[in-house]
Each structure stands twice: as structure tokens, then as C-alpha cells.
């Protein structure tokens, strides 16, 4: 299944890209994708939250579906 991964603000600066598509096996959850991204881009010291299909979630056991959007978002700074 294809997952669209998007990076914003400081996270995008660290990843060097705004988005990428990952092809994952069915049965993967948010934990799986987060671990991969964290180690690939060395995000261990970066503060971010994850939005799955535009909703912030802390439940990393959520199963992913084809065409899901996973967004890595640093602290909000509007206003």
C-alpha cells in the first residue's frame, strides 16, 4: 500500500523534502512508519506530532491503509 508522508516546518528542514510516498506492507501501523522515518532522518531530538489523515493522533498502534497521509508536524506557530 502507498502512504503519503508529509513534513512541515523544522521537520521538513531536517528531512530536506516536503513529502514522499512510501510503499509499505499491509498490516503496518504508525509505529512502523515513525521508526523508519526517525532513524532515516535522525529525528530523535526533534519535537513533532503526527497527524494521520489531518487529525493529530498519539495512538501509534493505528493500522495504516492505502493512500493514508501521515504528517510530521513541529510545534504550531500561528499568530
Amino acid at each position, binding site marked *: 500500500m502507498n502512504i503519503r508522508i508529509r513534513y512541515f*516546518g*523544522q521537520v521538513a528542514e531536517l528531512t530536506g523534502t516536503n513529502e514522499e510516498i512510501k510503499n509499505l506492507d499491509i498490516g503496518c501501523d504508525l509505529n512502523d512508519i515513525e521508526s523508519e522515518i526517525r532513524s532515516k532522518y535522525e529525528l530523535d531530538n526533534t519535537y513533532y506530532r503526527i497527524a494521520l489523515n489531518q487529525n493529530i493522533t498519539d495512538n501509534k498502534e493505528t493500522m495504516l491503509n492505502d493512500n493514508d497521509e501521515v504528517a510530521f508536524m*513541529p*510545534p504550531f*506557530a*500561528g499568530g
Partner: protein
Amino acid sequence: MKKKKKVFIDGAIGPDFIAESIAKHQTKKEIGAHEIFLGQVRADQKGTGIVQAIEFSAHEEMAEEKLSEIRELAFDKFNLSCMHVYHSINKVEAGQICFYVFASSAHRKDCREAVSWLVDTIKKEVPIFGKEILENGQHHWKSNTEVL
């Protein structure tokens, strides 16, 4: 299907834009009070440099969806005639306006409380990001968790 209103403005929000939106409300004769909040980019000291501009970015679709929910909630919570929210995207220089919240009601209590709630809620819940460009060429990432 919620109606999405235009939220993002490319660059600074000009005083003329604000004047126009005030003028548009003069036909609404049930309005007795307008409350307006304007966020302006501050030339703060950040580390070794002074903020010269902020470059705003956003998860625009998510931000618009979130703002449309916040707008509906505000109409439920407060007795308002009108409500408008605008935020800059891309570069805004220090001294310029990047955030504009406007609410109107018959009496002042409603629009006052609405604007206060809207500003706080939008800063906390809407995915907008800000890269503070310093005069010395460095940059710093703005975060609303630092100062509330």
C-alpha cells in the same frame, strides 16, 4: 459539507485590507460592537540575531478544515453576527501584520470573548509554522509552546 472560507493571505495583511473588511460591516445595522485582534511580527532577539521576518508555512488543507471547525464552534459558543480570520503565508517582515481576527455582535461581551477564544484556539490548534529569519542570516523556528 462545511463551507471553507479563504484564510491564507500571501505575505503581510495590509491596513487597507482591514479597513475594507470593517467598511463592509456598515450595512449590518444590528451590529453594535466589533472586536479585532492583529498579530504583528516582532523584531525579537533570538540567540545571536534579531528577527527580520517570519516565513510562514502551513498544512493548508488541514488548517482550513480546522479553522472551519473552530468557526462553527465559535458561532455555537458566542452570539455573533460575523466572524473573519486571516493568516499570512510566506514572508512577513517585522512590523507587519500576519494574523487578523475579527468578530462582530450586537453587544461587546460576545465579540470580545469570541476574539479572545479564537486567537488562543487558533494559535494552539491550527497547523501553521513559522521560520524566523534573523538579520545575521541565521534562523530560528517559532513555537507557540514557548510563550502562551
